[in-house]
């Protein structure tokens, strides 16, 4: 299966760090008809858990539903993050696939 990319971007301004994560994931709702066979529906395939950690400590855990857009772009904010802090994002979907990405606060 193709690798699903997990990209993280951070921006610090006035002591608050924006963390944006982009996962190139189909986020299939399970409600859309299959274009090849109209009687069937494309099975649901979406991220369920997406967790953020800073230097190994979990800071936020999110549960996503199928209504989150394709290629989800999820943002959170951190206070007091220092330059060099390591941010790690891990996710897993309803089909058991998972992935992660890492970034350093600039």
């Amino acid at each position, binding site marked *: 299966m193709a690798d699903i990319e997990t990209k993280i971007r951070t921006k610090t301004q006035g002591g608050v760090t924006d963390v944006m994560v982009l996962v190139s994931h189909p986020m299939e709702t399970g409600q859309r008809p299959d274009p090849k066979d109209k009687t069937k529906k494309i099975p649901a395939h979406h991220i369920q858990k997406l967790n953020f950690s800073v230097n190994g400590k979990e800071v936020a855990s999110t*549960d996503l*539903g199928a209504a*989150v857009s394709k290629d989800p772009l999820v943002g959170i904010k951190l206070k007091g993050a220092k330059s060099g802090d390591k941010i790690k994002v891990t996710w897993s979907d309803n089909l058991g696939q998972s992935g992660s990405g890492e970034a350093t606060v600039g």
Partner: protein
Amino acid sequence: MKTFNTPEDPVTHLPRRLFLKQTLATAVLVGAGGTTLFRPGWALAAEWPKAAFEATKLDEAIAALFGKVPLASSTAVKLKAPTQAENSAQVQIQVQADLPNVEAIAVFIEKNPRPLVAHASFTGAEGYFSARMKMAQTSDVHAVVKAGGKLYTAKQNVKVTVGGCGG
């Protein structure tokens, strides 16, 4: 030199191979079963709230996620969403909670087949969450924030236009 040429050499070789085989087998096992092995730990921390995500009505979804706690409308919950969405599959929604001890933020789209879109719980990050969401039709978007054991909410109507022409 003596140790290298001892007759036991083939004997020591065998256990070594066996050891290698065993370690490889364990590695494969860990690799394949990694996700399933990790599940119980995650379940303890926070399982994906299936019942809440599968609820078809707004109040049922809120009750399934947070329990039957009264909601209070609050201006401290800042919901940023477009008043008119040009692309219903990509509606940028941001929630900022200016409250102390924010524990969780959840976003619900009332008229979606399944209202609960996302739920974030915080253990160190600020009370902020943003994501792009799909909307089935024009609907109220509700942000529910859990702070200090209480629930606060804010809502906004987002108009979904078909064909990108506002009207």
